[in-house]
């Protein structure tokens, strides 16, 4: 499902030099697999997810997602690929405050190839336990509920790969387990490969496969993100 080989990412420093933030020899995740990637803050976790999702491009190397070499796609091609094949759960939820829960999920469908499927959006919100909160706006919901909406939105386009970036970091401890369970079970049901990035041992300990980004990333200098 996901295969990274010889992937490098540099950032240009103010003095003109290059700062290596990512240097991954090989990283593979099989179809349907659920993997926790553990890394400290500033270890390049978000940069890695952005490269896998095509938001950023690697400076060298190969990134294959569902058999597609996304580093060779045009920017528009990567956008379309991301909309169709990749779901993204953010640490800060990133729900649009002016939209209701249902509209936030529908927004996730807007940019994909198919038409917006209102029934699926409702089904997903029902699945994450928000059947009665569909018309509520994010500001009218708890953080736990907001993250559930975020999970429903990420799964709206039936992605092949779900990227979850510290999904429990902003959720109170009482609801962290619920969120992890929700993500894992829905990915299981929807047959979606899961790559969950976390720095929480409690979260990572629930996964059969746990990789450490520090071991994966050969970049000698750490950078923010």
């Amino acid at each position, binding site marked *: 499902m996901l295969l990274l080989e010889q992937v490098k990412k540099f950032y240009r420093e103010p003095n003109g030099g290059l700062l290596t933030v990512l240097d991954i020899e090989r990283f593979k995740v099989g179809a349907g697999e659920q993997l926790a990637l553990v890394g400290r803050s500033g270890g390049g976790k978000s940069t890695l997810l952005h490269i896998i999702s095509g938001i*950023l491009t690697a400076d060298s190397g190969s990134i294959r997602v569902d058999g597609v070499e996304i580093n060779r796609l045009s*920017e528009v091609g990567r*956008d*379309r690929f*991301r909309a169709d094949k990749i779901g993204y759960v953010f640490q800060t939820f990133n729900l649009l405050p002016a939209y209701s829960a249902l509209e936030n999920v*529908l927004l996730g469908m*807007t940019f994909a190839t198919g038409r917006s499927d209102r029934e699926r959006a409702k089904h997903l919100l029902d699945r994450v336990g928000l059947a009665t909160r569909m018309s509520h706006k994010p500001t009218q919901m708890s953080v736990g509920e907001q993250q559930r909406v975020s999970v429903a939105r990420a799964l709206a386009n039936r992605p092949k790969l779900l990227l979850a970036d510290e999904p429990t970091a902003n959720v109170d401890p009482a609801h962290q387990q619920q969120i992890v369970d929700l993500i894992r079970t829905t990915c299981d049901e929807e047959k979606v490969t899961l790559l969950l990035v976390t720095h929480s041992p409690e979260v990572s300990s629930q996964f059969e496969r746990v990789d450490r980004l520090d071991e994966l990333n050969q970049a000698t200098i750490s950078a923010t*993100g």
Partner: protein
Amino acid sequence: MSLWKIAWRSVADRRLSSILTCLSMALGIALVVAVLVVYGVIQDTFMRSSGGYHMIVGGKNGSKLELVLSTYYHIGVADEPVSWEFYTRFLRSESSGDFGDYVQTAVPICLGDNYKGFRVVATTPAFFDAEGSVKIYRFAEGRAFEDDDFFAAVVGSAVAKETGLKVGDTIRPSHGVEEEGSHEHANDFKVVGVLDPTETANDRAVYINIEGFYLMEGHAKVKEGDKLSDKQRRLAERHREVTAILVRCTNDASAKWLMVSINEGVEAQAVSPVFVITQLLSKFLAPVRWLMLGVAALTVLVAGIGVMVSIYNTMAGRRHEIAVMRALGASRQTVMMVVLFESLLLSVGGGLLGILLGHSLVAVIAPWVEMKASVNIGFFDTAPGFTVPIGSYVLKLSWELVLIPGLIVLASIAGYIPGMTAYRTDVAKSLSATP
């Protein structure tokens, strides 16, 4: 969810700013529409009223413009009359009618009276004769006066509407073309007909039999030593004058020859109403129209800049929202389109409101325009148009329709800079920023 809906949500989110931006655009467009409609209707009315006759014949030394305006549009007064004898030269049946062979219809007009401020036009029944003119008068009520109905009158539709006159009523004209300072004649005229609306200045006139006109006090040309008999049935021709003669010739070539012949003489002048009106419109009204359109265009331009500023000011606060859309798969072009759609909603929405406001403005000023220019105008009058041939059909479109694509172009320009800001949003950086 469509991109239009996303754009609409963004516009609706900043309600007050959007309403004010729309209103400023609406005011500019309303001004453009009002100028186009009023000028167009005035032009149309003037050209329509001047149809049918090849020339107007009047006194030699009078103003050409005054002759046309007073005869056709009931504006001002032509005070250089021509003799009745000269008029008879246009009649075929007269032995003296040396112009008669070239003339299809010649209608004498006498002006000088008013009825409650409306012009009184003294003429012959030929005025209403469809054969003599391309103007076919239809009667809402009654009929035209007969030649020997000396004290009969026909009223225009606007006069009937405003005064409530109907067939069988009597009117008493006042001496003088303006109501102020005029004095009432002693003669009653019986209304025998009410005209259907013609959408010309004729709707605001009262027509009386020229024979009755001559018999009213002060209307006969009396020289020292002349005596008028009280029992006289018709005023003797030597005591008659006409303000103007409407002439329709047998063909255009005859009209040219006749006009040259009349103008070479010393008794009268002949003017082409179409020529005079075209000159009036192009020399006086067109520059005013362009000036007003220029002011209106500047207003629209300022409103366009307002749209741009209104959207641009929100961009800093929307980087995160745009980055989220990009992360969900929206392309740079897509987020730029959303911003352009916002610009379109504000500009075209404001523009459509402006068209409505413009027509409302026209309806509000209609009574004033009608009073000053004798032009009927209303809410549903549209700006003059242009024709587009489509195969064997010719489609007539109003210039107002051009405003819509014009607004789309303006909106695209206004939305470009904020759109480019959306286009260039750094997704990774904006996502990491706190929303």
